[in-house]
């Protein structure tokens, strides 16, 4: 196009907007920003922007929105008088991102957002000013698109007038993406029906070729792809295999004080994040965890403290993800290796945005293989789970709430939630959410392309293999990473640990020993249950309603998570060898004697008993006996198993677990001492129902307070517990 033909002076006007937005009269566009604005606004193209985070995509949206909302633009550029363009709409997945964007954009445009943290009143105010065309740009989370009220009353009336549709973090649209979100499926039907003249811009920092092709397919052949360079010249990348957790803890505690700046440590699971944060605190480092189980307010608080340099380290799961922007972040350390180069690039890319030197250190631990395999395996619920849900709803004449569905399915509830979310996003779904968390069968049949699901899984496995290759690479890390993300650079970065020696000082102290003691001390509370489950037991009929004081167990302890790399392993080996290692006894005694941290009163235990088993008859009693011997108190086998049960771990939902236990145990009243605290030992605790029932039986037959103790705690899978990040 011949720019001379137009009286609308694009470049000058765009630049003046930029300067006003940044509040800096000297500001200049970064490479590619103006081109992107021209493609979107002047050429009205559909544009996919692939640029690293921090490049300034948001400036492109804001300035494009600003010009597209300017009647002068239509008058001078398109010869259209009195044109009143509709507002721009941006779909963006993360809260933290939205907060930053609103802040920057509001210098030049009227911008607002709708998210779950707002009050209903402020939501409806925002919605009504959007409908009335009083906003330049509205930012919503993709979940909003599945809200019928929003769709019918806000989106539908104005949808065809939208001046610009912005799809942020567009890789979420692609089911090839590492971060596929069912809610994003809804964007597709909007895109398919956008008037051809409506400009569309999608942006991402993390998409490999396959994802880009997928997005290209959805937006149409004429989509223009504007790619920037992904390499970050300030980053010194380093990767290391460091199997032992103890060694890794010691390592991070020893290098962080020497990195001279604040940073993020990424862990794969919530429990790890909590643990690492605690460890760093013990080493005088100001650290805080950040993960999906924390309240929004707490998360925002941690984000702000890091932004304001009030924290040295945030130990985060992938919940601290897209869009968190701290220009002077000094380091990103991966305590465990993430699933793919895309994950890694996205997270490590938070460091060194606006400073000369920054570190990106990736450690590969022995547990990473298992955890990542679990993530890959469980990313998409299995066909059985979908069929189970459909079957249950199909048999029901009435709508059913999510609670009941979970209760009736013998699978982990998280998988049910995930499957329902996917089902809800399908255009022709066999089940429908008729109100919040209430579901009903429709006449549609299940229509999921399982070959594709399988293919995606294979791709993910390959991506994880690549990530392991990245760790043990002998060539340039930045080149490898950029290439995996579709940036074809070949020139070595000259900064990573394969290009030149890295200048990280390790403080050499006795940190390894300290880390080892720290890990051994971690033990896990077993909280007593407060209610018997509905419906009542058939055999233990008297155990019903709330768990009364004379039935209740005391708070218990588990020595370790079964996933623990040291003790967890010993427990599993013990089960295989039918004998527990003496190291477990030593560790158990430490906890049992730790009155301050557990059973905090003066009295010691009076006697020991254990949970009986019919298949491994002597394993637990032998262990309990040894413990009793060390404590110099009697071991009394007062509980008997009178019914064969399946291992509790095979029972996936609480309902099945409970039925499995109904009438399984009996207590020999004559053996029970009249008073004194009881230590009740088992090898692995899971739902806690076994303890709850036996404690009640013991108490009702006259025993004193019952304190459960388990060697290991298992939740769900052997490795993955409830603390694990779900997405």
């Amino acid at each position, binding site marked *: 196009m011949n720019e001379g033909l137009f009286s609308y002076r694009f470049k000058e006007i765009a630049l003046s907007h930029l300067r006003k937005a940044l509040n800096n009269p000297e500001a200049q566009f970064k490479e590619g920003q103006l081109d992107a604005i021209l493609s979107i606004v002047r050429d009205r193209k559909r544009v996919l922007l692939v640029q690293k985070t921090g490049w300034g995509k948001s400036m492109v949206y804001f300035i494009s929105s600003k010009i597209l909302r300017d009647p002068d633009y239509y008058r001078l550029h398109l010869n259209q008088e009195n044109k009143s363009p509709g507002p721009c709409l941006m779909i963006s997945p993360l809260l933290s991102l939205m907060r930053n964007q609103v802040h920057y954009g509001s210098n030049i445009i009227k911008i607002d957002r709708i998210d779950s943290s707002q009050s209903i009143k402020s939501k409806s105010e925002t919605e009504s000013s959007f409908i009335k065309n009083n906003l330049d740009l509205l930012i919503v989370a993709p979940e909003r698109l599945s809200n019928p009220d929003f769709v019918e009353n806000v989106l*539908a*009336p104005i949808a065809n007038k939208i001046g610009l549709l912005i799809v942020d973090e567009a890789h979420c649209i692609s089911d090839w993406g590492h971060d596929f979100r069912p809610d994003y499926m809804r964007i597709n039907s909007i895109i398919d029906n956008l008037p051809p003249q409506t400009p569309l811009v999608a942006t991402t920092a993390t998409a490999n070729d396959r994802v880009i092709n997928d997005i290209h397919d959805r937006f149409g052949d004429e989509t223009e792809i504007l790619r920037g360079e992904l390499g970050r010249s300030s980053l010194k990348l380093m990767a290391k295999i460091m199997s032992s957790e103890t060694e890794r803890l010691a390592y991070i505690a020893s290098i962080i004080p020497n990195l001279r700046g604040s940073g993020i440590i990424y862990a794969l699971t919530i429990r790890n994040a909590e643990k690492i944060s605690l460890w760093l605190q013990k080493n005088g480092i100001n650290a805080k965890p950040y993960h999906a189980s924390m309240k929004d307010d707490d998360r925002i608080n941690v984000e702000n403290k890091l932004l304001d340099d009030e924290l040295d380290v945030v130990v985060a799961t992938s919940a601290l993800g897209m869009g968190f922007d701290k220009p002077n972040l000094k380091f990103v350390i991966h305590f465990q290796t993430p699933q793919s180069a895309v994950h890694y690039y996205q997270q490590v890319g938070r460091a060194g945005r606006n400073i000369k030197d920054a570190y990106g250190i990736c450690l590969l631990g022995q547990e990473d293989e298992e955890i990542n395999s679990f993530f890959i395996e469980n990313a998409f619920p299995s066909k059985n789970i979908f069929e189970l849900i459909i079957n249950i709803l*199909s048999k029901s004449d009435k709508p059913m709430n999510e609670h009941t569905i979970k209760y009736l399915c013998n699978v982990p509830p998280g998988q049910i939630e995930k499957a329902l979310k996917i089902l809800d996003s399908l255009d022709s779904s066999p089940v429908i959410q008729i109100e919040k968390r209430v579901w009903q069968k429709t006449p549609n049949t299940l229509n999921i392309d399982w070959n594709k699901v399988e293919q995606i899984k294979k791709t993910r496995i390959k991506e994880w293999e690549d990530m392991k290759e990245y760790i043990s690479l002998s060539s340039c890390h930045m080149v490898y990473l950029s290439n995996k993300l579709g940036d074809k650079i070949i020139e070595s970065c000259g900064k990573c640990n394969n290009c030149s020696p890295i200048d990280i000082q390790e403080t050499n102290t006795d940190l390894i020993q300290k880390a080892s003691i720290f890990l051994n001390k971690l033990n896990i509370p077993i909280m007593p249950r407060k209610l018997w489950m509905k419906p009542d037991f058939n055999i233990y009929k008297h155990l019903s309603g709330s768990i009364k004081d004379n039935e209740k167990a005391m708070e218990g302890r588990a020595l370790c998570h079964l996933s623990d790399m040291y003790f967890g392993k010993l427990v599993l080996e013990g089960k295989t060898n039918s004998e527990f290692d003496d190291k477990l006894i030593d560790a158990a005694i430490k906890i049992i004697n730790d009155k301050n941290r557990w059973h905090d009163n003066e009295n010691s235990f009076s006697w020991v008993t254990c949970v009986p088993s019919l298949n491994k008859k002597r394993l637990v009693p032998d262990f309990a006996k040894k413990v009793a011997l060390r404590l110099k108190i009697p071991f009394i086998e007062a509980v008997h198993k009178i019914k064969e049960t399946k291992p509790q771990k095979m029972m996936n939902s609480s309902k099945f677990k409970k039925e499995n236990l109904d009438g399984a145990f009996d207590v020999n009243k004559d053996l029970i001492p009249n008073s004194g605290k009881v230590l009740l030992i088992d090898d692995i605790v899971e739902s806690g129902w076994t303890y709850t029932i036996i404690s009640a039986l013991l108490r009702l037959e006259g025993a004193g307070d019952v304190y459960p103790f388990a060697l290991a705690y298992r939740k769900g899978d052997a490795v993955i517990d409830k603390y694990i990040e779900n997405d």
Partner: protein
Amino acid sequence: MISNNTKAILLLKMKSLQDGSVDNLKPNEIRKIIDLLHQNKLYPEDLLLEDNIKVLNLIESKLSISASRISQLISQSIALSLNITKWSKLGIWVISIFDNAYYPLALKMKYRHKCPLILFGSGNKDILQKGGIGIVGSRDINYEEVDYTKLVAKKFANNNVVVITGGAKGADETAMKNALNHGGEVICILPAELNLKVLDSSNRRYIEEKKLVLICTENPEAKWTPGRAMARNKYIYLLSNGVLVVASGLKGGTWSGANECLEKGWTKVFAKPSNNPESGVLKLFESGALNHSELDIEELNLKLNYELLLIDEIAKLEQKSIKATKAMLTKKNIKYLDYQPKSTSRKKLDESKQKNLF
């Protein structure tokens, strides 16, 4: 998938969601547009093209429907797609008179330009072209009539005759339930509330088994009204190869529906005699209804060859022999079902007395 012609019609009849809204088009306005487009070898989907200004101007100049009104309605495609998604989630599809493969030919041929432009439905669309026998009757039929209804529904089901009903309580429901229970196929024409009926587990299961198809001329969210229930009745007759009245009073839906059919000659009406002095059946016999004993399943259920019927009709319109008609259609590569008679011949046909084709 919803065809573009269907989408265009839906957009024209969709209420405007914008403030200071434009009026949506009335069905007869849409029909006029379709006729006009047809004369110009155009289709409603041409309105959806980016470059539709000529089409809009044509409509404005010939029919005085303003181009801006239509383009505003057409511009609500996202709102429509959100609706379509909502329907498709419930298992509801939409077809229009342009979807020849599914839109019941019987309805088009018997009802001509009055036939509904849009049908919403759920279930196996293939049943729609099969024809069948309608079973109608009052809501409050007596035990004997219930037993009779059960018996005939079973008989039809066993003979692979599709049962066509209106989905009301009483006779309709009994007929439908029993035909389905015996493995038969059913077309159920609902007056309203399609969005609720698809979720009703007694319907849903047979929809899943591809034995039941629900259809409705109203929007899926439309509420039940007596007017809609009355309007629905004629479609039972229009779709059927013959209708059996199991019971009728001297007023009400069954009575007026049967009389309308007898008057218009849409299809044969059979009725079961009754001893009840308040029964309207005797009067129906006087008006031309046949005794149910004359209902010959085999005769009514002759596998209807719509294609042949259509060629026959085209031949008459073109005043050619059947052989010559076939040759002409083959040469022009026109599928029988897609054939649109020229407007003059169509007019001629409309003027000529409606012939009972079935």
